[in-house]
C-alpha cells in the first residue's frame, strides 16, 4: 500500500488547483474530501470514482477484482454513450466467494479471469480494479497485471483505488494517475497534426459531446482523445501527441491535465461547454492554444465567424422562451455549478436564481455567485433534506435543478425538478444543449400535472359535501363537476 499512500498524498497536493493552493500545509495534507461521519455520509467511494472516470472508455474490458457488491450492484448504470464498441457495458468481476478468500485464491482467480476475457473478447486492453476486500487481503494486482501483460501480450492495467482509500473525488484522481502511469504515451500515432487536441473530463453523457464535436470538425480541429467519453484505448494511449488540451470537469482530472503539460508540453485551459458564452470562450481558447503551438493563425478568424453564427442562432431560439420563463425562480442544488454561463444564460432570458449550493465552489466562484445573486443569504453550504423539502413545499422556487440524490425531495414536495448531473437524460452541452436545457426547464415547469397533484382530495377540503352525495349516476357526474370547480378555487 505504500505506493498507494504516496499516490494519495500526491493527489492531495495539486498546484494547478486554486482551492488546494489556498490551504495551508496542514489543511492540504488532510486532503480535499472532508472526513466522513458514520451514519450521516453520502456519496461514492474511491473505487466508484475511478470507475466513473475510466469506464466510458468503450473498447476496454473493465474487470473488478472483488466480492460481488462492488460490480454486481453498480454495473451498466451510467449515461455515457458510445459511437461504436459496446464492451465497456459488459460487466466483468472475479465475484470472490468465501472459499476464494479463505483459501487465498484471489490472485489466481484474477489471472484466470484475465485469460478468459482475453480469449473470449480479445480487447485492446483490460483494466483491473482493486477494491476494499482485495486490498485488505493483500492481493498484489500490480504484479498480476504485469505478469498477464507479458504472458498475453495485451495491456493489462492495474487501477489501484480501493473504496476504503477515500472519496469518489480521490478515485477520479487515482484513475488519472493510472492512465499516466500505464496508458498515455504507450502508443505513437502515425498521423500527428497541428490541430490535434485532447478534451479531458468530458464523459459524453447522453451523447452531449456530439453536440460540440461538429463545431470542432468545422474548424478543422481533430480530437485526438476525449477522455473518457466515447474513447478508444488507442486514442488515449496516443493522447500525448496532442498540441493542446481543454479540461472540462474541473475537480476530477486537473492533475491529469497538469501532468500532461509537464511531461509532454501540452498546454491546457479549464473550460466548459455548458452555456453559450462558455462554449464560445472554450472554442476561442482552444484555437489560441493551437496557434501558440504553431497552427495557422487564420483559424482565429474562422472561429470568430462560427461563434457569431452559432450564438445568434442560439440566442434567437432562447428568446422564444422568454415569455414563458420570465420571472421563474430556479433553485440550483448541485455540487458545483461547472459553468457560470448557464446561470448567465438563464438570467438573460429572465429566469431568477433563488439559491445555490456552494459546497464545492472555490473562493472565486463564491465571488461570482455574490454578484449574480445580490443576496448572500441565497448561498448555502449544504441543506438538510428536511429544510430543502420545506423550502420547496412552500413554493419558494418554481423548479430545482440538481442531481439524482435530491430528486425525490423535490418530487415529494410536488415541485418541478430537472436532473443536471450524470444520470440526466438529455444532452446539454454546446449551443444547442443550452437551448435544450431551457426547453426542458420549460417542459418541467409547465407540465399540467403540477396543478393536479397539488390539489388536495376533494373530501379532504370540503367535508360537508360528503353527506350530500347524490345517488343517481347522472347527478353524480353533474355534481362532481361543480364540486371539482369549487375545490379548485377555494382549497
Amino acid at each position, binding site marked *: 500500500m505504500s505506493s498507494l499512500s504516496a499516490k494519495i498524498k500526491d493527489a492531495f497536493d495539486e498546484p494547478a488547483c486554486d482551492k488546494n493552493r489556498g490551504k495551508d500545509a496542514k489543511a492540504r495534507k488532510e486532503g480535499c474530501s472532508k472526513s*466522513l*461521519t*458514520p*451514519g*450521516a*455520509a*453520502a*456519496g*461514492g*467511494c*474511491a*473505487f*466508484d470514482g475511478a470507475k466513473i472516470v475510466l469506464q466510458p472508455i468503450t473498447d476496454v474490458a473493465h*474487470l473488478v477484482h*472483488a*466480492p*460481488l*457488491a*462492488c*460490480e*454486481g*450492484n*453498480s*454495473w*451498466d*448504470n451510467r449515461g455515457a454513450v458510445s459511437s461504436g464498441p459496446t464492451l465497456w*457495458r*459488459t*460487466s*466483468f*468481476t*472475479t*465475484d*470472490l*466467494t*468465501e472459499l*476464494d478468500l479463505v483459501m487465498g485464491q484471489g490472485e489466481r*482467480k484474477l489471472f*484466470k*479471469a*484475465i*485469460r*478468459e*476475457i482475453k480469449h473470449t473478447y480479445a480487447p485492446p486492453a483490460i483494466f483491473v480494479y482493486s477494491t*476494499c*476486500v482485495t486490498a*485488505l*487481503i493483500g492481493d498484489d494486482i500490480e504484479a498480476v497485471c504485469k505478469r498477464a501483460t507479458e504472458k498475453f501480450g495485451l495491456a493489462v492495467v492495474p487501477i489501484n483505488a480501493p*473504496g*476504503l482509500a*477515500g472519496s469518489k473525488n480521490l478515485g477520479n484522481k487515482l484513475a488519472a494517475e493510472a492512465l499516466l502511469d500505464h496508458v498515455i504515451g504507450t502508443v505513437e500515432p502515425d498521423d500527428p497534426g497541428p490541430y490535434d487536441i485532447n478534451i479531458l473530463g468530458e464523459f459524453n453523457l447522453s451523447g452531449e459531446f456530439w453536440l460540440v464535436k461538429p463545431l470542432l470538425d468545422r474548424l478543422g480541429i481533430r480530437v485526438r482523445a476525449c477522455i473518457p467519453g466515447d474513447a478508444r484505448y488507442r486514442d488515449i494511449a496516443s493522447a500525448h501527441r496532442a498540441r493542446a488540451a481543454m479540461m472540462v470537469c474541473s475537480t476530477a482530472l486537473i492533475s491529469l491535465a497538469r501532468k500532461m503539460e509537464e511531461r509532454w508540453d501540452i498546454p491546457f485551459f479549464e473550460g466548459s461547454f455548458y452555456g453559450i458564452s462558455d462554449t464560445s470562450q472554450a472554442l476561442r481558447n482552444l484555437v489560441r492554444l493551437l496557434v501558440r503551438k504553431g497552427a495557422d493563425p487564420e483559424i482565429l478568424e474562422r472561429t470568430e465567424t462560427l461563434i457569431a453564427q452559432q450564438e445568434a442562432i442560439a440566442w434567437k431560439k432562447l428568446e422564444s422562451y422568454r415569455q414563458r420563463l420570465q420571472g421563474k425562480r430556479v433553485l440550483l442544488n448541485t455540487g458545483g455549478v461547472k459553468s457560470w454561463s448557464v446561470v448567465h444564460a438563464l438570467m438573460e432570458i429572465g429566469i431568477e436564481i433563488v439559491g445555490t449550493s456552494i459546497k464545492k465552489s472555490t473562493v472565486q466562484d463564491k465571488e461570482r455567485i455574490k454578484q449574480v445573486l445580490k443576496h448572500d443569504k441565497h448561498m448555502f453550504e449544504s441543506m438538510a*433534506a*428536511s429544510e430543502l*423539502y*420545506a423550502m420547496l413545499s412552500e413554493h419558494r422556487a418554481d423548479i430545482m435543478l440538481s442531481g*439524482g440524490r435530491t430528486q*425525490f425531495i423535490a418530487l*415529494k414536495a*410536488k415541485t418541478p425538478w430537472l436532473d443536471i448531473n450524470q444520470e440526466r437524460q438529455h444532452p446539454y452541452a454546446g449551443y444547442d444543449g443550452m437551448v435544450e436545457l431551457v426547453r426542458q426547464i420549460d417542459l418541467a415547469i409547465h407540465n399540467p400535472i403540477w396543478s393536479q*397533484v397539488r390539489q388536495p382530495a376533494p373530501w379532504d377540503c370540503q367535508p360537508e359535501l360528503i353527506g350530500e352525495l347524490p345517488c343517481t349516476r347522472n347527478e353524480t357526474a353533474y355534481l362532481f363537476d361543480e364540486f371539482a370547480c369549487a375545490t379548485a378555487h377555494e382549497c
Partner: protein
Amino acid sequence: MARILPQSKSAAVNPLKSSQPLGAAFAFLGVDGAMPLFHGSQGCTSFALVLFVRHFKEAIPLQTTAMDEVATILGAADHLEEAILNLKNRTKPTLIGVCTTALVETRGEDCAGDIANIMRKHTQQLAGTEVVLANTPDFDGAIEEGWAKAVTAMIEGITRSGERARHPKKIAILPGCNLSVADIEHMRDMVESFGLKPVILPDISGSLDGTVPDRWVATTYGGTSVEDIRELGTAMRCIAIGEHMRRPAKALLGLTGVPYVLFQSLTGLQDTDRFVSLLSSISGAAVPARVRRRRAQLQDAMLDGHFHFGGKKIAIAAEPDQLFQLATFFAGLGSEIAAAVTTTDRSKILKKVPAVSVQIGDLGDLESLAVGADLLVTHSHGRQASERLGIPLMRIGFPVFDRLGSQHKLAILYQGTRDMIFEVASIFQANQHAPTPEALDPLRNREISR
C-alpha cells in the same frame, strides 16, 4: 429432478446477483420507521442505494458506517457506535437494521458483540430503538439469503419468546423477497376476505409502494410495525412463502411455537388452490364469491393463453425461489425451460425446478444458453443479452430500472397468474414472425435432418 451445474468460470460476466447486504436492507425497508445501516465503506452503501432508487424511484433510507483505511486496519466498532448514535439522534428510527458487508466480515469483526456493547453503554439514549444485526458478507449469497437473514434476525431479536395466548384470527405471513408490492397488497386482501387478520413481515407494500407523504420523513414510513413483530407469537399460524423463508419460519416456531406452512410458490392454479383451501380451513369460512370468480377467470386465461405457451422455449435467470416460481408457471402452461440460471447452489428448491439442469452463474451464462429461445425472463440487466440475441425480454425480479411500475406488477394467486399469462402471451404476439415460403419449404433442411 434438475441437475445443478456449478460455476466453472473465473470471470463473472454480467452478474445476475445483487449483493447479500442489499437483500437484508430490502427486508428492513419493509418495517415502519426503519433505517438500514451498512457496516462497511461508503461505496457499498452508495451502490446499493443507487440501485434501490433506480428500481423503486423513491428516496430510500440507507446509511453507512463509512469505514476508512484506519477503521479497516484497527477495527470499526467505534464507527458502528457513532453511526448508530448519529442515526438515533438525527432520524429517530424505531429500528436500525445493521447489515454487515464483505469488508467488515473479512476482517472477522464480532459485530454482534459490538452491538451488545453499544446497547449496554447507551441504554437510555437508544431506548425506543431496536438494533438488529444481519451477518451478510457480499462474498456469500445474494438477495434471498440477505432478506431471509434479516427477517430471521428481526424475529430472533424482537419477537417476544415463549408460548402465548393465540389470537384465533391472526395469521403471520413471511413473504419471500420475490413478492412485489402488488403481490403483498393482493395477498392481504385475499387473507382478509376470509375474516383473518394478517401480520406481514416484511411488508414492503406499506413502505415501498410509492406514495406522496405530507411531510419529509428520513426513515421508512409504513411497513410492519415493530410492535407487530414483537407480538408475532400470538398468531394462530404462520405462512411462509418461498423456500428461503423456511429459516425465519423455523425461528418463529422455535421461539413461540407458532406452527408454519410453507408455500414454495403462490403462482399457478394449484398452488393458489392450496393457499385458498388453507385460508378456508383456518378461518372456517367459505371461499368468498369474488375469489371463486378470480379462479374462473384464471381458468379461462389458461384456456385462452395456452396456445401461445405450448412448445415455447423459455430462458430464465433469477434467484432460486423466483426461478422455481417462474419455471413452474411456464412449464405449467406447456412451455419448455430451455435455460435456467441462478445465483447459488445452496437452495433446496433448485432440484425441483422443471428443467434438465440449473446453471449456477450469471447473465453471460444465460446469454450463451438462451440461443434459440423464444423468451428471456430476468431483470433489467438482461437487456443487453436480449438485444444481442434478438429475443424479447420479460423483465421481472430486481432490479427493474428501465421500466416504470414493476413494484405494482402482480404475479401471484389467481389474479397474478392470470395477469402474467396475458403479459407473456402479449409479448409473444408482439414478436410474431409471419410465415414465409422459405421458412415453410418442405425441401429445406431435409439433408440436415436425414
